[in-house]
């Protein structure tokens, strides 16, 4: 292995998987290792850039066709190997995904189905009792995030300017909503679900923890320990509270989602 760091996601993957067993044979843009997080057995998964990606529209860390289906494969492996175990291996998704892959081959060869493969695998693993923790170290955008991370029981993010969670990049969102980028940014500043920054995202109640890491591209030993401890705490919390996503419904800016569920149940 070369020591070149491919991305922030790659950097955190290597920090968390020291001494772990690296899985090989899949596409280079999906890194997988089996190890532990403070004693808890875990499989670590990251999507990383691969400049030589067979599908060039996925060369910069995007989740494309191979990435989606490979995520499905490596998550299914965990489900299968723990089928008879009551102690389920945890899955740690390290999230730094700029977007899904946008391209002609992608649409033609069914990237929506590849991403369904990935999202479906993570959801199946969670429902089977595997604690899944998503660690957002960089971008978590749109379809890429749906495929890699959003099915986690708990999401942990770094409080950092380069951490961004959104449904669409600014330029495209502006074009689709017939606004200028400046107008979009102005609007986003007053409407929390439209905002691009992590502080506004945090108000939606979707995160388990927001961690302050001074320099996420060069973390201190204490910070690495903090991240490991937080992931470990999340796993304990998951085991205590079960497989569903109810813990995401506590945010004040997501209150209407709770009201809808209460009313739907009352009318059901």
């Amino acid at each position: 292995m070369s020591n070149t760091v491919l991305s922030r996601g790659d950097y955190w993957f290597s920090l968390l998987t020291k001494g772990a067993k690296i899985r090989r044979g899949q596409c280079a843009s999906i890194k997988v290792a089996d190890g532990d997080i403070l004693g808890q057995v875990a499989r670590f998964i990251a999507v990383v850039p691969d400049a030589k990606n067979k599908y060039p529209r996925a060369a910069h860390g995007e989740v494309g066709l191979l990435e989606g289906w490979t995520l499905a494969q490596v998550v299914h492996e965990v489900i299968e190997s723990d089928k008879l175990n009551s102690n389920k291996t945890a899955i740690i998704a390290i999230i730094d995904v700029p977007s899904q892959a946008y391209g002609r081959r992608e649409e033609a060869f069914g990237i929506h189905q590849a991403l369904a493969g990935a999202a479906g695998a993570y959801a199946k693993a969670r429902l089977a009792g595997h604690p899944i923790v998503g660690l957002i170290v960089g971008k978590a955008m749109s379809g890429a995030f749906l495929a890699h991370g959003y099915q986690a029981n708990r999401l942990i993010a770094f409080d950092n300017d380069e951490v961004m969670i959104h449904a669409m990049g600014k330029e495209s969102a502006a074009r689709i909503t017939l606004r200028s980028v400046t107008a979009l940014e102005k609007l986003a500043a007053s409407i929390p679900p439209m905002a691009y920054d992590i502080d506004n995202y945090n108000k939606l109640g979707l995160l388990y923890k927001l961690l302050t890491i001074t320099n996420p591209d060069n973390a201190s030993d204490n910070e690495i320990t903090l991240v490991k401890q937080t992931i470990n705490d999340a796993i304990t919390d998951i085991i205590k509270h079960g497989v569903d996503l109810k813990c995401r419904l506590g945010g004040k800016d997501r209150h209407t989602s709770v009201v809808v569920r209460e009313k739907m149940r009352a009318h059901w």
Partner: protein
Amino acid sequence: MPNRDMSFIELSARERARRILDQGSFRELLDPFEKITSPWLEPQGIVPEFDDGMVVAKGKFNGKPTVIIAIEGVFQGGSMGEVSGAKMAAALELAAEDNRSGIATQALLLFETGGVRLQEANLGLAAIADIHSAIVDLRRYVPVIGITAGTVGCFGGMSIAAGLCSYLVVTREARLGLNGPQVIEQEAGIEEYNSRDRPFIWSMTGGEVRYKNGFADIIVKDSVNDVKTAIIQCMNKGLPDTLRSDDYDYYLQKLNAIDTSKQADATLVKNIFGRGDRK
């Protein structure tokens, strides 16, 4: 009018649900009189709808307990906001609960959606993740059947939802894809994807090619009766032996074998993914 056929595409979401369910069994939940509107649209100068463009109805289909969740493509392009998304997620979650307590409630999802409503961006995305989760949960018990008829089609995170369904029914008038043509052109350039070249767009994402290339299970005419027949066929099959979204071996083998030095066209896609039994 039980036997008189009519266009399915021309119907509103509410009428689609009403016509699919057994006569007289339609009961809408959180209907427009409940007035649960999006809290995010008015501050942006957009007039909300009292149903937020999502129709949830319980009733019987073929005599069995069924929930239909139908997206109204006319309102904001069928986009998924906090309320519309939560309505769909909640209904799927309750259907799964029903199944766990011995009531075999089945679910039909009518997709007419461009994906996330960008005015509610992150809450739309979060709701779609909940919907994915709920489909995966429910499809363990009963087939979850998706239908995309057109004219909006099914895009964005909701195309992933369609990909998670046990069965997917399309018409020739539907399109199914992750990324809308405009966004691909914006991100990748006009050489890669010309959003104004409509025949090209249809040759990539139209209902007919999706069916022929194995990304949908049944193709139907624009007819209420044919849609209902297709649903019965899916229900009679029961839980599928292999879910399309679990078929990573098949797709990885195909994708790894493709020569990506040249750009794709409709013929190439057909040669690789085309199913001989689907002319």
